[in-house]
């Protein structure tokens, strides 16, 4: 009986809190009244990486810091700031890592060139194969 009670008590025990007790920031889970601004904010949020749940965008994440980042994005969009400026502001602080969109910088050139090179290699292979078959 006592063992059962202990088990029940354990089941009811709340895990150690790892989140704050404050409600989400005002714009964390609230859409901007202007639909065009909201669409712009949404598009940017889907391309920004959550800092703690590193595989998710801040649009998808339930982490508190992701909510605070959504609040920051919506607030700045509402104030008339351009999405590219907000992205640049975050990249300045966290590096290109924070943005899912790869930069058009020399370090990312292989990434942009890879599809072109692969497509070229594939075309070359097809041309050679077809040529061989025609001759054979």
């Amino acid at each position, binding site marked *: 009986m006592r063992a059962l009670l202990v088990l029940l008590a354990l089941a009811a025990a709340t895990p150690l809190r790892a989140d704050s007790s404050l409600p989400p920031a*005002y714009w964390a889970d609230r859409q901007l009244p202007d639909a065009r601004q909201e669409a712009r904010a949404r598009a940017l949020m889907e391309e920004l990486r959550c800092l703690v749940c590193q595989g998710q965008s801040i649009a998808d994440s339930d982490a508190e810091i992701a909510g*605070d*980042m959504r609040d*920051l994005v919506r607030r700045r969009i509402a104030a008339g700031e351009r999405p590219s400026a907000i992205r640049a502001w975050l990249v300045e602080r*966290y*590096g290109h890592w924070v943005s899912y969109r790869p930069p058009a910088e020399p370090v990312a050139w292989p990434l942009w060139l890879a599809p072109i090179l692969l497509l070229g290699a594939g075309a070359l292979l097809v041309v050679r194969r077809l040529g061989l078959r025609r001759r054979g």
Partner: protein
Amino acid sequence: MSRTLRFAPVVLLVLVLAALVWRLAEPPDTKVRSRMTGKPIPQFALPAAVPGKPGLARQDLAGGEPRLLNIFASWCVPCRAEAPMLEELKRRGVAIDAIAIRDRPEDIAAFLAQHGDPYVRIGADPTSQAQLALGSSGVPESFVVDGRGIVRYQHIGPIIPRDVPAILAELEKAR
């Protein structure tokens, strides 16, 4: 097909396996470093987080002497672990300011009463905006800021005893 080319898939497989084993044995560093190191502290002005102690603004961190800026929260478990180390740093003459992330005055006051209060100033950051401006991604984190308000060093995670010499050295370097 030439003899050497025939082994290419096997070689490729071995290389891929080696890469996987290497990453399993040595997981990548998932810490997000702030790029603000070497740059001036961004503009911010936070209200007082607890009654009787001033809030924190950018200019408070550019007073001519290096300071330690601690990002903490009463709900953050590792912050409890680092509290004695902050007391130790204070004892050694380090001026420590803090930003309290997503916190309530009464919770902070209870935390300080229980774990000690090494802070000169505490600014309240209820929506993490100053934290984001600093390029910090969690609690606890600590920044060494020099007398001109330039970030010199970032420590991610709780300060444990073996981190103290490094932080003291960074503070000395920032002088």
